[in-house]
């Protein structure tokens, strides 16, 4: 059953030998100790498990490990470089866009992917694209500020 799967993880080549049916979320958290990616619902409804696969935001709770063979994966741990935060992370910090913080890594990666594809999104595009990310503390106002902050920086 086990297979050897190769992929790029946060810029480094990675090899995992395991059941390829396992969810990407689980392998990241349990085998690779990258726990910044969170379980929130297990059915792609909340966005807490969002990672980038070849630059696109993907719900890792419903993606099998086998489906990412040969691809480039970025998790929240791989977003900052040499201790320097990504501008989207800086924006979340600056706007205090967190309460319990559990949804935040997924939010940040969802936004990174949006801004990479569309550096100048409209407010409506931001809201509809981010609508699949849930925050149960309902800290949406500060998160929206952070999104606008990050989008304004991306425009520069």
């Amino acid at each position, binding site marked *: 059953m086990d297979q050897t799967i190769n992929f790029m993880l946060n810029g480094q080549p990675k090899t995992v030998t395991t059941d390829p049916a396992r969810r990407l979320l689980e392998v990241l958290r349990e085998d690779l100790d990258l726990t*910044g990616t969170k379980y929130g619902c297990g059915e792609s409804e909340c966005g807490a498990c969002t990672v980038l696969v070849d630059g696109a935001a993907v719900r890792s709770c419903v993606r099998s490990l086998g489906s990412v063979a040969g691809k480039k994966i970025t998790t929240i741990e791989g977003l900052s470089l040499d201790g320097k935060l990504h501008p989207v992370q800086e924006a979340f910090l600056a706007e205090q866009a967190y309460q319990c913080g559990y949804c935040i890594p997924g939010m940040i990666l969802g936004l990174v992917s949006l801004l990479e594809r569309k550096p100048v999104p409209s407010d409506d595009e931001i809201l509809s694209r981010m*609508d699949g990310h849930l925050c149960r503390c309902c800290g949406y106002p500060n998160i929206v500020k952070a999104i606008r902050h990050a989008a304004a920086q991306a425009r520069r």
Partner: protein
Amino acid sequence: MERDPLSNGLSLIEDEQIIEPVPFDFGLKRRTFVQIVTTGLMIAAAPISALAQQRGGGQRGGGAETRPVSARIHIGRDGNVTVLTGKVEMGQGARAEFTQAAAEELRLRVEQIQVVLSDTDLVPNDGLTAGSRSTPSTVPLIRQAAAAAREALLTLAAQRWSVEPSAIELREGKLTHTATKRTLTFGELAQSEELPKASEQPAPTDAKLTATRDWKIMGNSVLRPNARDLVTGAHRYASDIKRPGMLRGKILRPPSYGAKLVSVDLAPAKEMKDVIVVRDGDFIGVCAPTTHLAQLALEAIAKTAKWESVPHPASKDVYDYLRERVSGGVPKNEFADELAAAKHKLRATYHTAYIQHAPMETRVAVAEWQDGKLTVWTGTQNPFGYRSELARAFRLSEDKVRVIVPDTGGGFGGKHTGEAAIETARLAQAAGKPVSLKWTREEEFTWASFRPAAVMDAEASLDENGKLSSWYFININAGGSAVDAPYRTGKKNNRSVNSQPPLRHGSYRALASTANNFARECFMDELANAAGADPLEFRLAHLDSGRLRDVLEAAAKRFNWTERVKQKTRNRGFGLACGTEKGSYVAACAEVEIDRERKRIIPRRVCQAYECGAIINPDNLRAQVEGCILMGLGPALREAMQFENGRMQNASFGDYEVPRFTDLPELDIHLLNRTDLDSVGGSETPIIAVAPAIGNAVFQATGVRLREMPLRLPEKMPS
């Protein structure tokens, strides 16, 4: 079935918190065989006499401090200052607030303070983190201890230099004799013999606290100290804890509430490599090196399980069900004379549905047994309560149980009981290895606790002047928080009565005050309408001067209520509501749009005024107020647990629709800073006004009075 048999009816209310633990009595009355399949080892626990049933939960948070300073404030020989408290951080901002409290009194920068929360081996028991108690109870305790430490440091330095303490300036960890410029640091004093001795004394309660007008750190928007770890993913929640050799657990759940296991075949799971199957009566769980394998093993078992179900009421019948089961019957309205003499009288019944907290981080625990001692990492609002529950369940003394609570992924009053921790510890004990167990979202939506549904009867009479002459208000099932009307109501009878709930209850942000305030504030609007009065004027006419009146007037003014209600725009409406709970005061004005085609109520603007005494951290308070309003939109408009035949019908975020980005109305928040008053907690009460304000706005827009939360437009709308 009258009641979920998982609950023993031992619903505890402490400090008005609902603590309804799942009873565990394994190993108490019968022989217990825990089978560890892979090793073939059998553990037989001898039966012991049943333990006396003890109350669960923690102690009331607060009260006079009897502990020494060193229990709360530690000054290291390196000069680092550590604050210790048994409260937890779950997003409400307690960590920053505690940091501010200590920094203020010790004249330190916030960066010089480290706060250790909720490790039961290290911190004092500060009870539950609930009921908005951290601000009014724990902050003063920390300030007292910090002020006492400050005085002890000053006294020591004064003795060394043979000067008066008042001649010494204290700043950022350095004491300076201003006349001679001699200096000492906290670290240097901590190395002396006297300071440790002084810090073993009970914290004197008379050490002078910094007056609000002199605050330099409190009263400012200090950031959460570990914020950076939240945006980098570095913070380890309980679900992120990994221990050497740790396995992943899963528990076999009944298919419906109260279902009894008739038969099951464990063999298919036992045959799976690396899988450990644990059975103890109806408790069946599996452990495996990966969650995937544990899930496969669980499914193999579940396929073979035969269950006998029991009747359970459906959510569509729940209001009748609760009313029929009120212990002693629903009290009658005894104000017959006032009703008979009334110019207007009104009677209405309101309902609020069962809802769930649904924190982003579901119930989780990591349990590890070592040398007879149990350590559990978990997400909870009740660390010492969990410790007691675990100690009772495993017949240990409390010093053999350590509960560690990393900053938690949301609570909202829903994490008071330790069932997930106990399940995990059972698996870990049987497996002989550390185990991590994380409930799925479906488990959380089914087996966690629920905010009680409520049936509320209201009846009132108005005299010839349009003033209330009698008031009768009964809450069935949800509780008594804010059941008393804050208005001058004439004769009154405000009561909450118990029923026999079909679901396990848990606290929630602001508890029953949301239900009581919804019914009362909608009813006040109905009465205003009957009296032919403006809803604002009608309320003010029944309110004495004071804090509630202040927030109501502030919200109305900022919303421009008097002018706005004159606007008549089709499918637009305005409503307001106010209330008080836990010592703070809130008023909201809402503007809604009615989408008749799609039967939707769309809040466009919420203007809210809120007052909770002297504000400690304005940015954090604003975030809490905004979060409360938006969280409150869920149960106001959509959220309701649907159950039938003992099964939840909407146990997922796809079906149970919580608020989202696109629900965000324009928010206009006004925080009234009463620096002349003590600070109270602000993470709950701001939730109680939004639902009735919206309901009242719907009436203003359409003439349709909605009396149930969630508010839903009727099939047939008047044109």
